[in-house]
């Protein structure tokens, strides 16, 4: 890929904006304070939160990038009650295997990630686009702004797509991503994760999220993961190791189901059948 040379010729330049002023202790104390306030609120009868806070001070980049006014509640109209349609000409079947995109085997632990996409009413999200992207096994993205000195893998781009099946299932074969440092604060490291992009039957269900791996020691330290104040909601982003998905002498297996919000459209049993 010709772009790579251009993008990575100066890959060890550390920009000055790497200020990293706050310590992990400061960030962790800020996370603990928000969570304690949330827990007290729930104890006092406040509703449980299911989504991340968009105003979450420990994640420094969120400070100037979150709306300060409450979102306006509206009933979806016409176009919002539908999602764009994707088909098999949009996505080749092999795009769900991130390990065969180049001339050799990528480095790292080969994994299979499988799950179902459902809406809040339990209906499968059928024939819809799922996109993933991730760092390689060394924790490095192919991106000009990812400057940390972990190796790029010439056999791994870290991008995949698929179209869900009739029961809402998706499956990817990939490599377990590594954790990587970022510049939120001093010694900040992200837990290993895979980014997921999803569409539902309504455009109101559009979602981008991150799947994490069970038992990651970095969970407690990560302000992006901890921006979800409720532990039950945080757990929804963690995949389950599944030995039934693990395959003999080939790959370890994880299961992760994704729930979008409920559809506001009248749902018909065969509406997505083609």
């Amino acid at each position: 890929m010709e772009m790579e040379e251009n993008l990575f010729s100066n890959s060890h330049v550390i920009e000055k904006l790497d200020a990293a002023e706050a310590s992990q202790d400061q960030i962790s104390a800020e996370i603990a304070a928000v969570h304690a306030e949330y827990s007290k609120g729930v104890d006092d009868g406040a509703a449980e939160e299911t989504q991340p806070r968009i105003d979450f001070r420990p994640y420094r980049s969120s400070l100037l990038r979150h709306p300060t006014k409450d979102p306006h509640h509206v009933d979806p109209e016409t176009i919002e009650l539908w999602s764009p349609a994707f088909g098999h000409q949009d996505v080749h079947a092999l795009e769900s295997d991130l390990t065969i995109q180049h001339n050799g085997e990528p480095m790292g632990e080969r994994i299979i990630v499988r799950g179902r996409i459902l809406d809040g009413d339990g209906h499968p999200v059928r024939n819809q686009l799922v996109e993933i992207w991730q760092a390689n096994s060394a924790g490095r993205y192919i991106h000009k702004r990812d400057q940390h000195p972990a190796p790029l893998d010439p056999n791994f781009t870290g991008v995949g797509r698929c179209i869900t099946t009739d029961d809402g299932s998706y499956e990817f074969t990939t490599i377990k991503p590594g954790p990587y440092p970022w510049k939120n604060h001093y010694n900040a490291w992200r837990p290993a994760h895979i980014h997921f992009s999803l569409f539902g039957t309504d455009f109101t269900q559009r979602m981008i999220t991150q799947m994490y791996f069970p038992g990651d020691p970095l969970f407690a330290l990560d302000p992006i993961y901890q921006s979800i104040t409720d532990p039950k909601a945080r757990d929804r982003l963690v995949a389950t190791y599944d030995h039934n998905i693990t395959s003999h002498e080939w790959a370890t297996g994880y299961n992760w189901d994704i729930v979008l919000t409920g559809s506001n459209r009248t749902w018909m049993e065969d509406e997505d059948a083609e």
Partner: protein
Amino acid sequence: MSEQKLTATPGQTIGPFYGYALPFEKDNQLLPPGMPGSVRLQGTVTDGAGETIPDALLEIWQADADGNIPQRTGSLVRDGYTFTGWGRTAVDNVGNYTFTTVNPGPTEEGSAPFISFVIFARGLLNKLHTRMYLPDDEEALARDALLSSLPEDRRRTLIATREADGGLRWNICLQGEDETVFLTYPGA
């Protein structure tokens, strides 16, 4: 309205490193530039300090010029003929975005045409929904249920301006004095 049986998975930030994943060839061209009926839709995305954001990603979804909701596949392949109604673009280094599209028609008689937007960005922990209304049919805008429910200074954040060449300009402010009105829907 149906009762919610399952709790939605939390969203998360798109992060800064989606560059190889989500952009695709001609992603911001719902139809080819220069095709009869095409308009340029452009604007900026700014933060609470008024600075433009270089790592946001926008998606639009809209009716065609006759107000029909497209249900044709092919958004990721862009054959140059099929209007799928959906587009995606990363903002550029200085926070500008551009789409080539058509003016959507009203989906119902007399309704105010709009384009549905979703915004993702580094630093933005969950997606944001909003609408960009066309400025032309003032009567329809005055009748619109959403716009009518907003105070005047908030209402104008959802209405694009028409440029001399027929294009549309609409700026998105994530925070600050001109903060765009963002939307939530039942069940969210």
